[in-house]
């Protein structure tokens, strides 16, 4: 059928679009999680701006959370493989 290539072209485009949007949504969900966790760690009483110390805390928090995540993933593999 004449249309065959055209149809799969459209579908492939949609598929790639959906995959990209899915990835973007995953990142956004991750940011919500970081923001929630680090807000709890770093924000005391809300004031007229985020002072320097709070900004540093939030920034460090995100990086340390990622480091923790990486470390746990690595160690978990070791534990699963039988090593302590």
């Amino acid at each position, binding site marked *: 059928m004449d249309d065959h290539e055209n149809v799969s072209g459209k579908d492939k*485009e949609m598929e790639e679009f959906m995959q990209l949007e899915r990835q*973007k*949504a995953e990142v956004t969900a991750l*940011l919500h999680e970081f*923001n929630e966790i680090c807000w709890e760690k770093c924000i005391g*009483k*809300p*004031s007229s701006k*985020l002072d320097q110390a709070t900004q540093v805390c939030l920034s460090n928090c995100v990086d340390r959370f990622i480091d923790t995540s990486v470390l746990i993933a690595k160690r978990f593999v070791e534990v699963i493989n039988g090593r302590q």
Partner: protein
Amino acid sequence: MAATAPAAENVELMSQVKQQIALANAQEMLSKMTEKCFKKCIHKPGKTLDASEQRCISQCMDRFMDSWNLVSRTYGNRLQRDHYKGAADMAD
């Protein structure tokens, strides 16, 4: 290489999907903001929200968005750092 325009049939659907995702994100933001700012600002729930509570909530909302922006930026920087570090490691 120039990007080609999406197929006409897909434009509408793509737009709808983007809108729905943006809406879901906004709802999540509002939900979290409400929870966090209630916790920070309302200590003994009274008959109304008094002026200081309203002020606190307003500031809290702004700080929450500031926090979101900073967290986004930090994450973006981290991805770049890891990307370039990975590339450098492979080049050795």
